[in-house]
């Protein structure tokens, strides 16, 4: 039992049991953090990827490599947040998944193979943009 008490005490120290002293009007003031390199939309994802790929190798830091890996892994979510059909979404998801796994295995190092795949993913995104309908088919009015 004493062990439990000690653990709880340690827990309280770790998680912190102090207020920050400022008066708050809401306890939900923390909005979700959005990464600075989060793309605005699907087209922006391809632009951001290409921009980072085109950076001179000497300037390509670990941070840039991580950003490329991040954007690649976000592509399925960003694509799913458009009106792209499931059939058109699947290739993007598969390509992103495969590239993410490869980048993870190389610790985000941009090998020739990874670079080729990233370029291919950008091209796939750009092709997919033409397939995004303005509205979902079921929401369209009857054809006149």
């Amino acid at each position, binding site marked *: *039992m004493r*062990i*439990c008490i000690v*653990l*709880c005490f*340690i*827990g*309280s120290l*770790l*998680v*912190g*049991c*102090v*207020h920050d002293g400022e008066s*708050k*009007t*809401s*306890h*939900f*003031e*923390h*909005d*979700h*953090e*959005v*990464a600075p390199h*989060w793309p605005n939309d699907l087209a922006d994802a391809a632009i951001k990827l290409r921009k980072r790929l085109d950076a001179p190798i000497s300037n390509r830091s670990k941070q840039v490599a991580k950003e490329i890996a*991040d954007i690649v*892994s*976000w*592509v*399925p*979510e960003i694509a*799913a*947040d458009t*009106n792209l059909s*499931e059939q058109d*979404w*699947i290739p993007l*998801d598969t390509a*992103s*998944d495969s590239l*993410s*796994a490869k980048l*993870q295995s190389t610790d985000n190092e941009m090998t020739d193979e990874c670079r080729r795949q990233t370029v291919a993913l950008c091209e796939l995104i750009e092709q997919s943009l033409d397939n995004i309908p303005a509205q*979902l088919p*079921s*929401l369209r009015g009857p054809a006149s």
Partner: protein
Amino acid sequence: MNSPLEMLIGGLIRVAQGFIAAAPTLLVGLVIAAILRYYLGRGGTQRLFGGNSWRSLPQSWLVGMLLPVCSIGVLPILIQMRRAGVKPGAMSAFALSAPLFNPLSLLYGLTLSRPLVIILFAVGSLIIVTALGCLWDFLGRKHGLAEPEKEEFGSELIGARRLAATVVQMGRDASGFPLVLSLIALSGLALLAAILPYGAMQHSVERDDPLAPLTMLAVSVPVYATPMLAMSQLGMMFQHANSPGAAFTLLILGTGMNFATLFWFGRQFGWKASALWLSALLMIVLGISYGINEPLVPPGVQPAGHTHAFDIYANPVHSLQQNLWSVAKEAISKQADIASLISLVILAGIGLIGLMLRAFGINDERLLAGSNKTADSSQSRRLDPIVPRGVIGATMLTGLVVLSVVACYAYYPSPEECLDEISLARTECLSAATSGDKEHALFWLPVWEEWSRRLEVGTLLRNGKLRRYQSMQGYLIRKKLELLEHELEHDPYEPKEVRKVVDSIFATNSRWVRSFRY
């Protein structure tokens, strides 16, 4: 820091919430304990948990995975296992694994992240219970921890007398030592509520925080969580890209054990041996947590920077709230769903019976008197043979497992039914949000979220798979619902921002619903 009044009120609220949450699984635990005592008996109980064979540890783990109990519901069962002389290692394996998963929570878990993650968590739990069981059995041999009861009890009871004995047993448990153990278990929640101020855990288990598994380790020991609560928290952790190691720690320690587990083991087997058991458990859990922390990070999920998943372990009262009574009433009424209320009423009923039996000095030994006569007269009736009690007990336990599988279909209805419920929740939530009725919107928002999970599990259950696209749309809708919750909680209310999120939710909802309709 919490004021003394906030500590007291917050602690009491958490104890009340915990008791309500535990009611259904505690009731199941009492039933199983009575079945072990009067139907399976000593021999049957030992066989159920693998006896003295090498199978005892994995078999106890498997039995634990199948029976729908929580870490409080497991306590009356442990008492009967001890009485039946089950090996300490098997008891340890069962005590830890039974609360972790049951058919309902396992199905829920499989849709939370990659199914592999939950399968790995289950395998991790098997490794832990096997290692601890071996240690416990070793200590048992060395220090003679196992002292099984020599005499079989209640084997003469049959028919109505045995049923009556079952009710007596449940009544006495519901008003006796297992009730005390339940309160000890819930005292952990009160302690946490006293120590942790409102929202203190919101930033404590971030993915990149190397201390996250350690922090969760310290918090999880006093935590009591039902399997479904732990699974929903795991879901939120995956959604927010929190530390997978911390998630594993929460599952094993928060769900698998509580203060009463430690108290009971200490009382039965000695405090020194129990301290060794706990230390080994903490070390193994911590080792596995740090081992899986990197590899199990969900790909493609952006960390949200904070989470409300663990607000339930901190104090529910914050400094801005003046009317503590209304806070308590709201917090407790949110917890009281229909299943919990029914279970509470039944528990209260059998607890009352137990108290009356105690007052009149009636126990199961009184029921034994005259039972031999009943048995003798029954033997003379050839067309009314006595079914061996082990057969009845095994049938009842199998029935319980089958019932929990059937319950999965009721709890996770067909996609069509889920979509109807979602349609209702969506209309209520979004119309209230856009018209500024924050309270109404915040009432329906978690209902919608809950049905989104049931939709996914119901689909998986009936179709055998959940498509990646469906899963992604579900992730998006829950992410946006949480954004809406944040907007609604902002003070002052910002109609333009709310409208923006609502429009985005409408678009995602159309895609999400379509993916399940076609």
